[in-house]
């Protein structure tokens, strides 16, 4: 069985699980500290999505077990909420400092529109850091994100 792992980190309050539910009817399984969704692409091909809440600091030790082996790590950024966004920034710095896994920084829509100000908010597009757009209502944006994760490898 060929398996890819993709951790998805974001605020508890945002729709990061939509990244999975837009593509699959399967239920997301709840575990202590993380939720898991399995997207079966064929009988021997699948992707595990690990949904991690940036607020659950007591479970950050799980990140060490998951993120280093992942093909890419998605961080969902919410620019419409300054508190969440401030935490996003800290999480991204933490991830970059600690792991080599490529980061895919995916911005949620602001007032229903694709945000264009992510870079000016303090992020630079450096090596191993990709900026993308994630619309929880659009399957296409999810597919683009996944394809981008797979392509650079």
């Amino acid at each position, binding site marked *: 069985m060929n398996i890819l*792992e993709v951790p998805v980190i974001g605020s508890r309050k945002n729709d990061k699980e939509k990244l999975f539910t837009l593509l699959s009817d399967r239920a997301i399984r709840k575990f202590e500290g993380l939720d898991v969704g399995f997207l079966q692409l064929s009988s021997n091909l699948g992707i595990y999505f690990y949904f991690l809440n940036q607020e659950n*600091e007591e479970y950050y030790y799980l990140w060490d077990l998951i993120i280093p082996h992942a093909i890419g790590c998605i961080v969902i950024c919410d620019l419409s909420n300054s508190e969440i966004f401030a935490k996003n920034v800290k999480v991204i710095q933490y991830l970059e400092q600690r792991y080599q896994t490529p980061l895919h920084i995916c911005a949620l829509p602001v007032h229903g529109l694709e945000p264009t100000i992510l870079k000016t908010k303090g992020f630079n597009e450096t090596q191993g850091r990709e900026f993308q757009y994630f619309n929880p209502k659009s399957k296409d944006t999810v597919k683009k994100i996944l*394809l981008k994760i797979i392509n650079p490898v």
Partner: protein
Amino acid sequence: MTDGLIITSNRTLFDEFNLNFASELTNFEYAQSLQSAKEAQEWELFDYLLIIEQNATDLQSILQNLQQSPEFKKLPVLCCTSATDWTQREMLWKTGAKDIIYLPVSKEEFRLQLQSFLHSISVVEKDQQVMGMQGKLEDYNLLDLMQTLDQNKKTGILTMYHSRDEGRIWFMNGRICEAKFRTFEKLAAIYKLVTWLEGDFTISFVDEEYEPKIEQDNQQILLECIQYIDRRNKLIDNLPDLNESLLISPETDIVQMESESANYLRFFQGGQTIAGFLSAFDQDELKLLEIVKEFCDKQNLMTRDFFDSYRTEQEREVEEVGFKSVFKKLFRGKEGSTDKGQVKKESPTMKGPAVEHEKSSIDKDLKYDRLFTTENVDLPLFKEKIEKI
């Protein structure tokens, strides 16, 4: 019950006729032209033709063509036309119309006229039959009937009914002259009919001469039929029950198959029986059975029970490979050796210098390296599948 073929260029008219006048007495099929009528006749044997054409000259032209066509020459023709001129109507009668209904006509009157026409052709049919017999294929199958008709040197038409299918064989002094079943070739039609062991048959003994259209004599045909049944039975013995539902294996990639094989296999999507497969294609049953056998041998097809157990096994494998067992270990490890106080964690919100995560204790307990590996993963295949979602 009679089967009528309506020939008209106006589809709406056919729909109206079909809606109002199709009954327990007659069924209607539609043909837009003489050509499509000939194609329809290959699929179904009709008892009469009904031509709806307002223009008498066009109607006469169709009738003339029908008279030249061996398929339709002997069928009674009912014409519906708005021709009021006697000369035109006279030509229609002379060209072979069995009856003419003048349009416009009320529904009630048309119904009565149609009934009268149907009655008249059934009386004629009865008159034409010197004698006949009927029975069940369970008691006398085609092989029995062929031998009986051969021994008694009978001339007539054997009509066989099986489920919703109907086939006919023409005899002349006991010899098989012609066979018709859907679009099958003559001998292939006989091979198909010989496999019918359930249904009804009727034999009409008529005083007519049929031109032999099959080269083989009865003995050769009988021998070939027996050999055919033998080969068929051997193939069936190696297959699941003909009435058992078969499904396409989840492992089968139809896209990668040759188009002909893929077309055959697609028939089984959602579950279909071999009997249904044999009935769906107008092709030699032996060839079709060979195809199914190949599918079964390659496990492209599987019975529902096998399919269910296969799926369950696959899911179990995924679960085993997957997160279930790993996470069980993971959380057991956490409960056993770590708690919030013991494990020093580093987080982006922690103040002060980063403290190295004590993951050795976790690793020790969990013997955990990684869930999965991205090495040797077929990424282009992932890409292809994601693009198809």
